[in-house]
């Protein structure tokens, strides 16, 4: 963690240390000239990023600091606050789960981190995303490509549609290495074959020439993982990586993500609606609801003493093995709220059976609870609240 950080940042003004660091291998240095052909670095932040790409060191206290991130979608019906003032941190090598229902803003948060939110209609309207000491919202779209695939790998939900049907598996894995590491075709293919073997595809070298339709769903997701890890990224974003797969394959894929991320020391943000998966994989969990983080903390704290009725609902709706046969699955009543112009109220209050007037008059803040880094957004469970 922090003790291993050699150059302390940076991001907020006091960038002296990093700057001197940069100037030591400044203009004309080989690292800078090894950028992909069509990426030109224009901004100050982009220059720092380009300089950082050359080494694998850590450049900040934390890998990721998200501050007050808001991503809105400008639709005909109004402005949808898909992500609304989200803040969280991620340490190097840490695994963070983001859980929540459909439409809670999990995926948009992940897309925002790589600035892949479809624009229009979406736009990151405010906030800061500091990735390894670089404020990525200051980068140009072109500079952003230096990060994507190189420092941030992305695994998409549906492996059936995320691979290009007309390109060979080998090409698609090698592509990232060719863009970022500027490897020759042969070297990139070599690397791709190694990766393919690493993600557990038998006869990897032969299968390089195959097309996606010759792979099963689980194997394609393995290929996606190989693509995401091709340049040894610092952060792996896995957006519901197992939702489209059947249960037995799920376990294999998750195990693969876990073992590879710990082998490479990659931090992981795992987005899922399945708390069971999050419990097995993550160090910490952010529970999201209606574009907000409503509870955050270590896995054990969230599971043992959840401090937000929504989190209880999520936990409650997990099916159990010791359940009576024929028992109904429990759900959270009601629907997630409309995110156009949310009012100043607890966004969960319409569905919350503990809600009182104050919940409908003021939105609670994230306040500290028992356990390290455990915060929840609920009037009722605050000290002196009426729940418990």
């Amino acid at each position, binding site marked *: 963690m922090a003790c291993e950080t050699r150059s302390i940042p940076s991001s907020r003004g006091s960038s002296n240390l990093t700057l001197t660091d940069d100037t030591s291998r400044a203009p004309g240095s080989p690292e800078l000239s090894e950028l*992909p052909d069509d990426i030109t670095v224009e901004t100050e932040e982009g220059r720092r990023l380009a300089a950082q790409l050359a080494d694998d060191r850590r450049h900040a206290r934390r890998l990721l600091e998200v501050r007050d991130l808001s991503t809105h979608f400008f639709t005909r019906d109004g402005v949808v606050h898909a992500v609304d003032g989200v803040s969280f941190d991620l340490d190097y090598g840490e695994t963070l789960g983001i859980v929540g229902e459909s439409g809670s803003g999990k995926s948009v948060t992940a897309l925002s981190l790589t600035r892949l939110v479809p624009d229009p209609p979406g736009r990151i309207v405010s906030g800061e995303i500091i990735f390894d000491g670089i404020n990525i919202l200051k980068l140009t779209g072109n500079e952003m490509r230096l990060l994507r695939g190189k420092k941030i*790998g992305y695994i998409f939900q549906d492996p059936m549609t995320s691979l290009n049907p007309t390109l060979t598996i080998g090409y698609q894995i090698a592509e990232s290495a060719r863009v970022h590491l500027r490897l020759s075709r042969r070297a990139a293919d070599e690397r791709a074959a190694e990766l393919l073997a690493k993600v557990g595809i038998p006869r990897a070298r032969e299968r390089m020439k195959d097309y996606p339709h010759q792979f099963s769903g689980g194997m394609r997701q393995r290929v996606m993982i190989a693509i995401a890890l091709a340049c040894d990224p610092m952060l792996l974003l896995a957006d519901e990586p197992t939702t489209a797969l059947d249960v037995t394959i799920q376990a294999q894929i998750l195990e693969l993500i876990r073992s590879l991320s710990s082998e490479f020391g990659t931090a992981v943000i795992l987005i899922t609606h399945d708390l069971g998966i999050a419990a097995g994989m993550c160090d910490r969990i952010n529970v999201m609801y209606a574009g907000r983080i409503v509870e955050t903390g270590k896995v054990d704290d969230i599971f043992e003493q959840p401090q937000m009725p929504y989190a209880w609902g999520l936990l409650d709706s997990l099916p159990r093995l010791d359940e009576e046969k024929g028992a109904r699955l429990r759900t959270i009543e009601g629907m997630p709220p409309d995110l156009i112009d949310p009012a100043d109220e607890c966004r969960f209050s319409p569905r919350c059976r503990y809600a009182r007037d104050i919940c409908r008059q003021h939105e609670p803040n994230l306040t500290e609870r028992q356990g390290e880094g455990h915060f929840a957004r609920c009037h009722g469970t605050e000290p002196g609240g009426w729940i418990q």
Partner: protein
Amino acid sequence: MVNQAGVLEAPAAVKTRKPTSLWGDAYRRLLKNRLAIVGGIIVILLILIAIVGPYLTPFEYRAQDLPALAQNRNRPIPPFQGPHILGTDGLGRDLLSRLMDGARISMTVALIVQIVVLGIGVPVGAAAAWFGGRLDTLLMRITDIVYAFPDLLFIILLSVAFRDTFFGKAIDGLLIVFVAIGLTAWVTMARLVRGQLLSLKESEFVEAARAIGVSDRKIVTRHLLPNALGPIIVAVTLGIPGAILAEATLAFIGVGVQAPRASWGSLVADGQRSLQAAPHLVLFPALAVAIALISFTFLGDGLRDALDPKLKGKQ
């Protein structure tokens, strides 16, 4: 298996199905379509004739066989008599040789027009689809205008306007005609490519490519266009008969090819003056046009079915 040394030997390579690619599958489907195969063979023959045919005939397309003509009382020699297999025209020129030279013109028209169509249609369609917004509107309105403009009028105007320039004289005055035909024909390609790319660019593999930092240009050329290649190939193949017909039409009304060269269209035009006396002068060029059109159409239909099996039977 254990060999003498007692070492385990790997079993003879595990039998695997040969990798099938999109193109391999399409090729196999194409082979099953008899009409398309016949069309394809004739197309290949036409191309071969266009390339080597004129070197094989004993008569040059513009050479007059005056003695033979005199023997026939200066009338067109009818077909299947003597050395002129398909007969001659009223000037004693060998019809078969002239048809073979006409095949050159028709195949060249097919080639150049489709190059122009691809060269304009694909970039315009791709840019409109990829960038969207105002550029899309602008480009599509331009294609609408070109689409609405009368093709023949445009081609005739262009050929007349450039008649005396270097450009107008290249390839016996044909280049300008070919380019003009291409300039009216690219709109369909632009619309096709735009439509294909519009749906493709929403696919997740495009987002996945973005997520690993692939540049926009590479996404369009490496990820999107190959996925649209099937429809593009079909459109090119099916566009060729249109181009051949357009050239023939123009030649028939006297635009484009200059005497003594003759395309199939101008052969028909010349022959129709003596339709009663020498019907073969119209019949054979018209047959040539028809065979070329039908072959390309069959081939194109077959390619469409082969490249997009979902469409089969629907069209």
